[in-house]
């Protein structure tokens, strides 16, 4: 359309130029010629002709432009009619051209409005879905500026409000994440895992490149999954290790006996004793593992009754006296009679025995272990204090895990299975209580366990 108009304009200009050139030649000739008067007449005629030609060309151009415009308008009308269907097309034939165009425009505007509204609805729906998604989503453009973030991303990556439009590196300074973007822009998705700075949150991220050079990052918190994986693999490794040691001893001793020592009863005795000791250890380990698995499955039966904490403590102290005396450790207690609590007597004894036994094991010869009780918030809290080396803070969170050992070699040497505290924790919680550890200053440990307090039994 525009080309047609410019073409006619060019031809008009060309003609005007040709006529003016002709006039100039005539003027030139006239000046050279002798008859000036005749010359002037000729000039006038030529100028008139030129003016007329110019007028005609201008008129022609205008008509051409107007034709082009109406053609354009007709095209708009036609396209509007096509999109609005034949019913409107039939009516528009009766209306004047301008009115028809105006009608088409208003219909087009209406259509556009509907389309925009449905697009906005679509966009809002998409935004709501994105916002509600559990995985964190961050999109960046080709210059690594953030274009979209959802709620989970703001929480997981600690993004402040107003990060959209800012470079990602200013919001999250995690090198692994940026390496991921570099790898992803090589036209293939990339995954990686990193720890969020200043936290222990483990994050796994997937970066997918977009055709426009941007990248979409989808990230998830995998801290809990990694923790469970570690516990599971530690568990398998620990069970195998704990079983392997006594089995190796049993096999070696049995071999020695079979190789001839069996014939000399006196020499054989220590080997048989070791066999017995290690078989016993395996039996204990297996029994404890079964206990733990029953507790975890919730199939461990407890019989709750009202027990005097004083009696409980005395029973436990009686059981450890031999070991304590052997190391010259004083076990003293400040537990008055008549402190009643609800507990399964056997389970409570197992817990307390474990805590006191550990305290004696880890206290240096000549040291002191103290057992006390107090009542707070309707619970009886039994504390076992020792003045041993204490537990370094980095281990504290994990000491109640199965097989977790602060000092593996030393605790195994002392005959522990690595399950004691874990079982104690399960038992305490099954009775509705808690168990915990506190560092004792300047040195030593305090392990405590709580039981629900109970009124004195009527017949007691």
């Amino acid at each position, binding site marked *: 359309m525009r080309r047609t108009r410019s073409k006619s304009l060019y031809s008009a200009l060309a003609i005007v130029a040709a006529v003016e050139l002709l006039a100039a030649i005539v003027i030139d000739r006239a000046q050279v010629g002798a008859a000036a008067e005749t010359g002037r007449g000729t000039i006038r005629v030529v100028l008139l002709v030129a003016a007329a030609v110019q007028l005609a060309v201008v008129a022609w151009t205008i008509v051409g432009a107007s034709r082009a415009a109406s053609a354009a308008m007709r095209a708009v009308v036609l396209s509007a009619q096509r999109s609005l269907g034949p019913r409107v097309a039939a009516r528009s034939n009766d209306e004047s051209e301008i009115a028809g165009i105006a009608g088409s425009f208003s219909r087009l505007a209406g259509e556009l409005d509907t389309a925009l509204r449905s697009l906005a609805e679509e966009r809002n729906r998409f935004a709501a879905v994105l916002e509600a998604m559990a995985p964190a989503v961050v999109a960046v453009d080709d210059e690594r500026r953030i274009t979209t973030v959802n709620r989970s991303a703001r929480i997981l990556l600690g993004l402040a409000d107003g990060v959209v439009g800012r470079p990602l590196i200013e919001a999250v*300074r995690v*090198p692994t994440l940026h390496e991921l973007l570099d790898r992803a822009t090589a036209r293939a998705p990339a995954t990686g895992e990193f720890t969020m*700075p200043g936290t222990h949150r483990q994050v796994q991220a997937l970066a997918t490149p977009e055709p426009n050079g941007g990248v979409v990052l989808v990230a998830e918190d995998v801290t809990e999954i990694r923790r469970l994986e570690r516990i599971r693999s530690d568990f398998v490794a620990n069970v195998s290790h704990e079983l392997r040691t006594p089995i190796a001893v049993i096999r070696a001793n049995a071999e020695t006996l079979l190789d001839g020592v069996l014939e000399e009863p006196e020499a054989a005795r220590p080997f048989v004793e070791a066999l017995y000791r290690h078989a016993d250890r395996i039996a204990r380990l297996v029994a404890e593992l079964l206990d733990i698995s029953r507790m975890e499955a919730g199939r461990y039966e407890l019989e709750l009754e009202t027990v005097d904490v004083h009696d409980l403590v005395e029973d436990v102290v009686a059981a450890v006296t031999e070991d304590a005396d052997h190391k010259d450790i004083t076990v003293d207690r400040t537990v008055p009679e008549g402190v009643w609590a609800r507990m399964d007597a056997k389970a409570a004894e197992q817990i307390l025995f474990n805590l006191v036994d550990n305290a004696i094991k880890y206290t240096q010869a000549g040291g002191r272990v103290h057992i006390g009780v107090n009542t707070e918030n309707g619970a009886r809290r039994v504390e076992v204090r020792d003045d041993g080396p204490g537990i*370094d803070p980095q281990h504290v969170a994990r000491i109640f895990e199965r097989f977790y050992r602060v000092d593996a070699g030393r605790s195994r040497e002392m005959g522990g299975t690595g399950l004691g505290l874990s079982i104690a924790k399960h038992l305490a919680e099954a009775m509705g209580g808690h168990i915990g550890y506190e560092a004792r200053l300047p040195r030593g440990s305090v392990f405590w366990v709580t039981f629900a307090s109970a009124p004195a039994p009527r017949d007691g």
Partner: protein
Amino acid sequence: MEHTARTYEQELAALRQSLLLMAGRVEEMIARSGRALVDRDVDLAQKTIELDRVVNRAEVEIDEMCLLILAKRQPTASDLRFVTLAMKMVTDLERIADLAVNICERAIDLSRGAPVVMHPEIPRMTEVVESMVKDAIDSFVTNSSPKAWAVIHRDDEVDEMYHRVFGDLLERMRTDPALVHQLIHAQSVAKWLERMADHSTNLAELVIFMVDGRDVRHPGKRAAG
């Protein structure tokens, strides 16, 4: 002209990006060195030591970027402050990375012997130092001088912690001479953490200079002069 201005802006943005990436790497190294020490994780310690090469390379590259901008663009006012600041920041960041490497090397040494006798305050010190570096860089990102001032004030906290740790360790050396070897290692770690805090303070001072145009280094000397 417009084209030149845009390229210049891009160069400044790229410098900023490289600087932040290097800072992120250093922050990661501090966190990892602390974890390697506590968990006696030799593998993590070695991987962290390897990261030092990346940080060293970043230092050289950023220095080059700064020199190129200075030579080609002759920046003025805040741009000039930013470019010179970047050159100084990389030096402090690189020093912090070196100290993290020292801690990792010590973590490897300590993992060989008996369980580490560590002062309970050392993990806490690591956390504070980590947060100081993070906040110093955050104050740079957000152009916030109050945040930078907060970093400078936290340095006193670290100094106090260091003196407490030092006193305690000395006391334990006296009472338990068998542990002297290990306790000396623990003391070195505390000293390096304290130096990291000093470098973080330098970073914060540079940010204050960039934001407010005010030099807050060596306040005593300046007052005297």
